[in-house]
């Protein structure tokens, strides 16, 4: 059971959240070529280790939370709002 430190609500159980996938992809500008949108919709990294993910706090404040999480150890390094640029820990950090 993950414990996620929601920036608005504090530490809450994973059960309150809905996992929403990769938070490193950015929606292209409206006039971007189709290829850019194709990559945005379909192409995902599947990293072993640190990853930035979306967790939607549906059972709480209903905010989309950015979470830096280690897919191998399940450690969470930091949580923030969608506009935050969260730091990825170094290799030795995990």
């Amino acid at each position: 059971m993950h414990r996620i430190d929601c920036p608005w609500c504090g530490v809450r159980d994973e059960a309150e959240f809905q996992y929403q996938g990769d938070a490193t992809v950015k929606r292209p500008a409206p006039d971007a070529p189709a290829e850019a949108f194709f990559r945005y919709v379909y192409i995902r990294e599947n990293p072993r280790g640190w990853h930035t993910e979306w967790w939607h706090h549906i059972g709480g404040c209903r905010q989309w939370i950015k979470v830096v999480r280690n897919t191998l150890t399940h450690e969470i390094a930091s949580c923030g709002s969608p506009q935050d640029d969260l730091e990825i820990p170094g290799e030795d950090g995990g």
Partner: protein
Amino acid sequence: MQSHRLDSGGAIDREKPVRFSFDGNSYTGYAGDTLASALLANGVALVGRSFKYHRPRGVLTAGSEEPNALVELRTGARREPNTRATMVELYDGLTAQSQNRFPSLVFDLASANQLFGRFFTAGFYYKTFMWPAPFWESVYEKLIRRSAGLGRVSAKPDPDHYEHGHAHCDVLVVGGGPAGLTAALSAAGTGARVVLVEEMPFFGGSLHVEGDVIDSVPAVQWVRQTIDTLSAMPDVTLMRRTTLAGYYDHNVLVALERVNDHVARPPAHEPRQRLWTIRAAEVVLAPGAQERPMVFDDNDKPGVMLSSAVRRYVDRYAVAPGRRIAICTNNDDAYRTAMLLRKRGLRVPVIADVRLDPGAVAEQARAEGIRVETGMLPMKAYGRHRVAALSFQRQDGLFADKVECDCVAVSGGYSPDVHLSSQTGVSPVWRDDIQGFVPAPPIRRERSAGASTGRFDLAGCLQEGHEAGLDAAKRAGFESSDPGAAPVTTQEASTPIQPMWHAPGTGKAFVDFQNDVTAQDIHQARQEGYKSVEHVKRYTTLGMATDQGKTSNVNGLALLAMARGQKIEVVGTTRFRPPYSPVAIGAFAGHERGKTYQPVRRSAMHACHQRLGATFVEAGQWLRPQYYARPGEDIMAAIWRETDQVRKTAGVCDVSTLGKIDIYGADAGEFLNRVYINGWKLLPVGKARYGLMLREDGHVFDDGTTSRLAEDHYFMTTTTANAARVLAHLEHASQVLWPELVVHFCSATEQWCGIAVAGPSARKVLDDAFGGAVDLANDALPFMGVREFGWRNARARIFRISFSGELAYEINVPWRYGEAMWDTIYNAGVPHGLIPYGTEALGVLRIEKGHVAGNELDGRTTAADMGLGRMMSDKKHYIGLPMSQREGMVDPDRPTLAGFKMLGAEGRLRGGAHLVEDPEKASTETSLGWISSVGDSPAVGTWIGLGYLKGGLSRKGERLYAVHPLKNETVEVEVCHPVFVDPEGERLRG
């Protein structure tokens, strides 16, 4: 008369005799007994039959690691299989039965299996039952299930209830033995919130009732004082009968509290068990260690028992597991058992020690007059339903002997209990000096203390516990200026263990007692090429039983290592997974069963529907009226009548379940422009508009109407099924994609109930119902118009929208006014011929009108597929636009929406049917499309449907066949325009 009860001593209450029965025989024990100790006190050595060979088995241990003594507890609906007799507390009237025997425990027919034992070896199932294949289901599986398997479940609903608890603490201490108790003491002394869980009904762990001394007082007294001290502290919670089952991520742990397993039935309103989720800042693991059996021929005879268990039965329960107890060991600990047995007047014919020079302990034993033979391997246990003799032999083969005995106490050394630390994701580390695995350096906020780290001396356990408690508290932010010192006890010198993994023999030497895995099986698996420990585990089933191999793990790994010619640390362990010991499914379910499995959502008008005789249908968690049958009507007749009546006079329908989302903000219009495919900027206040939204991949996501109630206030409706997903989608767009837009959302589904009134008489019905409170004239409230008005003390909204294609309105009132509003409309409508209609008629009406719904929005269709391509604005950007233009999405060969009318009088249409030109050649290759929704249409006079067809409306008038292979049905259909009723839309604008 308890034949094997000692005259004095123990922690049992001799003033409280307890009656119980086992296999129909009545016995007496004492309060404080376990079922195992009470059976042993009555001289019952044979308690079960083994899993595969049906060999007679007795009690092996005195704790939760028990592999043999599994019994069916209680009777009737409360019957529970596979309970460990060593963990079952005796209560008056307890009833237990042995398992896996036929017809009786002493005379078991299937024990003939062991005569054919050489066929039942490793991989037996995989090899033997391969051929002929059809035999697997019809013959083999039934045979295996009858002869193998353990207990029987009751198959009746469990009359007891189970609940879930949540606990938070700074320091969780697992295990209430000497290390755990000192850890709890030192941590609690800093002011930290402490929870201590102990799986037994008593604290003290391996401490002896007699003999051990801590802080100059008998250990039992020290335990009592410690418990008193801890109980008096407000921030300490002590939980007995509670097994830590799982150690999960982020220091979330799950424990099972057996609240009322020790009484005949739980008192009223109390649960049988409680499943705790514990969130701990820091954890101290002090679960102790488990003694290992020794592997030699027929080492599973009833009466062969772990040395520590023999000691526990004598010391705590005042039970003699035998009168002549032979001892086999490879370490010092068994000598403590020998000394205790002598003290209690029991005979010890021999201590056979694997070690050549056991040192001081052997001298002490000899001084007591005990025969000690060194350098000895146990060779074979003799006896039928109980051990009668033990043979042993010097390792050099130069000396051998056999002694008579009725119990054999064996000690193959201790394995630190590394289950919980290993569950955190680290592999335990081998230590040669103790011949066991210890926890790896922690990766979570935990540390181990006591015997689970390989400290087997009491002084060491107390010291480690004290330090671990302080360390855990400190890391949780608590420190004491006066941390005190660990309790003191006498130090003991010891001689190291000498490994003895398998005494050579020709019979069956068991490693895993519960799954009947022998040393030979492991050797054979290796010879057949199985090398990885995980493969050997699965091939031989070693450690796969309900005991998770607690007594067999290390012996099995050692034997595999020998077979591979490698060291144990190279072979490694299999992965440890929760639960530590079995947890009943009822405990996981808790109160979430039956009616309380999930909430039932009822609309505000539910009682109205019941009064009108509605039959309800589940729509997600919602209960919706499906139809309102009149006396003598079947479902099809009711649907036909309701559909027909709406088009002739009027009908009223509960549409409260539609998703409703309030949208506020200066940029709300711009926001809608970006999430819907059509334009929203020009929608005036007081108007509604149909909207279609796409997923980012270009497929249709959801549809509904959105109304503009004020300059900065919109009101969106979604389909019932997608209400939650649409809200999450909007929140993503607003918070992640375009945070610069000023717009906010709030779910209003359960704040506003919805009532649809449709049919040519709808206006007259509502005029009568509202008495002129709102002007319904066509120019005052035209099609797609929206008005707010006061109704009684409430604010009501009326939307002139139509799903059926008739003149129709939707009225929203606050939830609590729903019943009153429905009754008002219904009563006003009856004189006009109004009837209530359910979801089925609603469906037929919208199919007749060609409106798409959930079946058409199946996640694979585009707006153009639905014939709504013209709605896609080319003046703006919106979610899904770029991907909706990809080659495959605009392929002219894509199936598009069409209507279908059944030809001929027989049969019916079905959703899911495929459309083909030649029903004789129906296949996925010849399929031209499919039917998505169907209804028996009064307006058309036969079955009609909507569906997707290659070529779509260009095939209008063609005749095709709808084939449904699952139902083996084929009907001829004509391709039609999807709007069967009022294609010009005159009625809904009338």
